[in-house]
């Protein structure tokens, strides 16, 4: 308890004695603070005016006495703080300027990139329009070639059409011919199948129409050759009697030709009968040319009737 009292008393005395040095401590504190500011690498050079004002305030404080000291201390404290604060403000203002420069750089870079991409875009469009021009030219050339080709092919088509028409006509003709031939063949077959003989003075006569032969030919038509059944029957029915086969023509063409043709036709019939099993010895083939017409050679029908082969089974004497 007494120790505490002695300590307190000592402190009180000390503080009483130090009332003047206390002010000096405060001055020193402020001087240190200002020195700190002035040696700061980023702040030290800034707020020169305010630092000067602070230094002046500290000089005034160091020289002041009595009541003025409180006021001078108050002012000095503020002036030192003002110097530091203004230095910080100036530093921030410089940073703002740097940020402005950075902003400009960013905008410039963006513009440069825009310009670059615009340039690339323009280049692309230029190439595209070049390609389109080339295409258009090529299309034009192709159209020209196609036009020329189509002109050619229309000539060809014309030709082809005419050819096709000719072929169609040919085909129609051929069809007509075939129809006629078929009709003729039918008619011939029917004739051959219904052929009968008739009695004449010279004997039993069966007449084979000239239709059994192709015009000017001595060969029997196939359908004639295949349908000689009634002639064969007719000849067989005559037993062993002799048979004369006479060939006749119309009066068209030379005598010699007609003679030869009628002869050969008669022989063709004879041969066919032999092939059908008739005894060859019985058969005699003879050509009489145009010399024994049975109809008027002036008409087509007459001529057709004259062109014939007669198979005569001679009546026995």
């Amino acid at each position, binding site marked *: 308890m007494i120790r505490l009292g002695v300590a307190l008393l000592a402190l009180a005395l000390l503080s009483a004695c130090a009332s003047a040095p206390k002010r000096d401590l405060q001055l020193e504190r402020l001087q240190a603070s200002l020195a700190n500011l002035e040696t700061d690498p980023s702040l030290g050079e800034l707020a020169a005016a*305010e630092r000067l004002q602070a230094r002046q305030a500290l000089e005034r404080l160091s020289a002041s006495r009595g009541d003025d000291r409180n*006021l001078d201390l*108050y*002012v000095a404290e*503020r*002036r030192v*703080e*003002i110097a530091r*604060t*203004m230095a*910080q*403000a*100036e*530093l*921030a*203002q410089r*940073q*703002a300027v740097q*940020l*402005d420069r*950075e*902003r400009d750089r*960013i*905008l410039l*870079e*963006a513009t440069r*990139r825009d310009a670059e991409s615009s340039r690339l875009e323009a280049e692309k469009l230029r190439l595209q329009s070049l390609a389109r021009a080339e295409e258009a030219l090529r299309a034009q050339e192709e159209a020209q070639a196609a036009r020329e080709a189509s002109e050619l092919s229309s000539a060809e088509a014309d030709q082809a059409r005419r050819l096709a028409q000719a072929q169609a006509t040919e085909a129609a003709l051929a069809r007509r011919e075939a129809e006629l031939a078929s009709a003729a063949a039918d008619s011939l077959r029917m004739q051959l199948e219904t052929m009968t003989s008739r009695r004449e003075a010279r004997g039993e006569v069966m007449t084979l129409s000239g239709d059994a032969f192709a015009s000017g030919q001595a060969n029997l038509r196939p359908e004639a050759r295949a349908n000689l059944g009634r002639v064969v029957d007719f000849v067989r029915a005559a037993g062993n009697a002799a048979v004369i086969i006479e060939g006749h023509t119309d009066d068209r063409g030379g005598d010699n030709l007609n003679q030869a043709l009628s002869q050969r036709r008669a022989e063709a019939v004879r041969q066919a009968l032999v092939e059908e099993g008739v005894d060859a010895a019985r058969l005699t083939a003879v050509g009489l040319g145009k010399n024994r017409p049975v109809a008027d050679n002036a008409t087509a029908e007459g001529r057709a009737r004259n062109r014939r082969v007669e198979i005569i089974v001679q009546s026995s004497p």
Partner: protein
Amino acid sequence: MTGTAQYIPFVLPALLALAGCASTPPPLAQIDAADAALQQARSAQAADLAPVELGFAQTKRAEADAAMQARDHARARALATQAEADAALALAKSRAAAARAEVQRKTAENAELRRELLGEGGRR
């Protein structure tokens, strides 16, 4: 000197000391300075950026006025001087706050521009 005469050198200073209050001139310069500093501080948006310091300055200035009314020129001078210092500090703090806000704004703006114009992502 001896006798009463030895006190003569002390008379004038004593008289002056007694008349100390009335002989201090009115602190017009200090009051003008305080007003100028307050004006500057207000212009720098101290009301928003350094309200405490501005408040101190305004209070001291008002008290200086009261001291002037009471013809206490010494007190008025002291108060006006303090008001000027407070106002100057309010100004400095306002400038610093405004500059820091601008730095923040521009930093954010640049980051935004980088993202939008240059396609640079990420936060700075």
